[in-house]
């Protein structure tokens, strides 16, 4: 059974890029460009893993994370923060809020991101 991954990121270019690489890797990827929509989808489809951006309009990624972890339906879903904001303080806060790990987009090629997600999914099986 294919694993389901939800990507919440406001940038369509980023979203499209990750859609491609995940489809190459045969991972079912759902995307959301809006934080509120992302939250809704997370409880609706119950993905196996969530990739979450931090800098987003309307709602900060950390707030999204807080809500995911505050909701009984979604709190067990591992969340990997995928951001371009290399801010140590916020990375730490994300980990504190329950994120599995923090990845800086520019430091990892799409393939490396996929490998990391696969590793995470493997450990959560």
């Amino acid at each position, binding site marked *: 059974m294919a694993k389901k991954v939800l990507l919440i990121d406001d*940038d369509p*270019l980023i979203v499209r890029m990750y859609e*491609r*690489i995940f489809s190459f890797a045969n991972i079912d990827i759902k995307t959301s460009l809006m934080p509120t929509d992302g939250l809704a989808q997370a409880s609706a489809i119950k993905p196996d893993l969530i990739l979450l951006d931090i800098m987003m309009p309307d709602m900060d990624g950390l707030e999204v994370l807080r809500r995911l972890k505050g909701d009984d339906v979604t709190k067990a879903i591992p969340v990997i923060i995928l951001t371009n904001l290399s801010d140590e303080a916020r990375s730490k806060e994300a980990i504190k809020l329950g994120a599995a790990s923090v990845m800086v*987009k*520019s430091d990892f090629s799409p393939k490396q991101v996929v490998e990391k997600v696969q590793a995470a999914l493997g450990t959560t099986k």
Partner: protein
Amino acid sequence: MVIKTQYRVIILMLTLLAVAAGGLYLLSANQKQHAQVLYQEIADENQRLFAAVYRLDGDPQATITSDYTYWDDMVTFTKNPSTVANQKFAHENLDTALSTYSVDNIWVFNASAKQIYKVASSGHANIDLPLSTQQIQAAFAKKPLAHFFIHTSQGLVELRGATIHPSNDPGRTTPEQGYFFVGRVYDLAFRQSLGSDLKSQVDLAPTAPMHLPDPSTGTVILSQALAGLDGQPVSYLQVSSDAPSIREIYQLSNQLLRNFVVIVVPALLLLFWFLTGFVTQPLNIISGTLKTHDPEPLDELEKKHTEFGQIAALLGDYFRQNRIQLSDAHARLRASINSINIGFIMTDVNRNVTMVNDAARRILFNDIRRSREVTLAELNQLLGKLQLDRTVTNSMTTIASHSLGEVQLGDKFVRAFVAPVTEVAGKAPVLGCIILVEDVTLERSLKRARDEFFSIASHELRTPLTVIMGNAAMINEEIVPKVKDDTLKGMTKDIFDSSQRLIQMVNDFLDTSRLEQGKIKFELETVDVAKLLQDLVKQYGHMAEEQGIQLKYEVVSGGNGSTKVKADVAKLQQVLINLLSNAVTFTHKGSITMRLDPHADYARIFVTDTGEGIPEARHHLLFKKFQQAEENILSRNATRTLDPGAARDTTHGTGLGLYISKMLMEGMGGLIRLESSEVGKGTTFSITLPVATSVKIKKGDPNGKKSPLN
């Protein structure tokens, strides 16, 4: 030591006065002694004279007392005085004896000491002798003759008495037949007659004089005790004679003293006044001006037609001229200091604030009134953590400048700097201290704005770059293997490489800006640097081998220190990777060696390559930000170059790699430096870190253990 002329004059005056007074004293003492000798001489002479006169006077009485008592008729008379014959005897012999012997009274007593006859000379009362029987018997108890004085109603009477015996008993050995007395009254007439003989005044005094009379009166007094019946003085005869020569001596002495007071003292005072007025005062004024450089007090003196007046005029001209020039220069300097935009505060060596310019008042107090008093204590409190007070003291003791850093004052940021003021740069004596304060608010906000802009821009840049790089990578991995066109393959590879390089540059900018803003936190933990280096060899060994370079790791033999250091492992890794990738980039053949040199309190890692080497002229630029840019600023005509060798920078352009490494190393309490580099032979960099167990050594702590990290 300078003794003021004024004091010298005073000392001279006092000495003169003392000498004059001393001379006068000696003279006076000498005269007194002389007067005393003279007095004694006169007294002795008087004594002699008195004794002679007194004896002459007393002789007839002695004779009559002696002669009359050997007379047989007298014996008969005492037995029965009332017979006619005896009465006749008395009248014919005794009454006439008064004038013959010039005595005043005669008394005769019988053997029972009863008065049987009395007679007095004319002018004297014929009184009874006021002596009792017992007194008379007592007077002759031991000897037949008596001479003593008694007080009577007539006054003091000199008595001479003898026992009466028959003429055949000249030794007065038989029992006395009666007693015979003659008396002389020491009345005024007698005393005057005695006085005229002695050329003196003769008085009676009830007691002896208590002390010698004041010789200065010129009176010489001789006192003669007059013994009573019991031998004790009943009165004193006082003979006063006039000695004008003694009086003259004293008069002369007094005259001398008067003359001294009237003539010498005023003369000395006059001399003193003259010396002060014409010599010491002008000298004081002149020396005062020489000290203060103030020509004002010379004004009066300059008008005088004396040598001092001339000197004063010359000095006055000189100092007035000087003062104009000086005040001109001073005013210009003051105006200049007040005009500059940097706060300028000056203290003297006792830390009193002597000058505060307008900028300093504006920056520190928002108050440019020059009347406002400023103290160092106040400044110290105002600048708080900059510890101005301590630094000022320190600066003056060590004769060194100190930058105090920045502090926030309300809505301002102020930077301060302290420097000692010396006559010769860097050498004692220290004259004071200068405190410079600068308003760096604008500078700071500009820098902050720039840094923030830079940081945000970099973030924004990274997103599209990530997309370009990500897609290029996917094309490379997924599409390119299926494509046969080599041109397209090359193009996509170039896109990927460029995007990677661009991201690295943006990352460097971001790192730099965040390091400079202090936004990067260092988490120090114990890191086994030996294991870290071994891991790096494993990780990058094959990458180096692909380029035909050997990556080696070794430990300096004999090193028994710890390999466990205190560091932020991710940052240490970043620094080492930067050094390694630099080495790989600039080494075309040979090897790269990472050598660990552990010591007791620090560990050092040498990264040595056998590559191109760095020209010595560029060594000093290595750890600077944007080396290429600096190179161009320093040398206007230098060709603008992005030659990576120039900066030894693998990011091919930013030149930030070593700058970041340096900040990272310093941030975790270590250091990085270029050990050696020679063109064509290779380069060695080293990094040093404190070992985990060593006591943390504060940067710049002078009491800290000497360590290569300081």
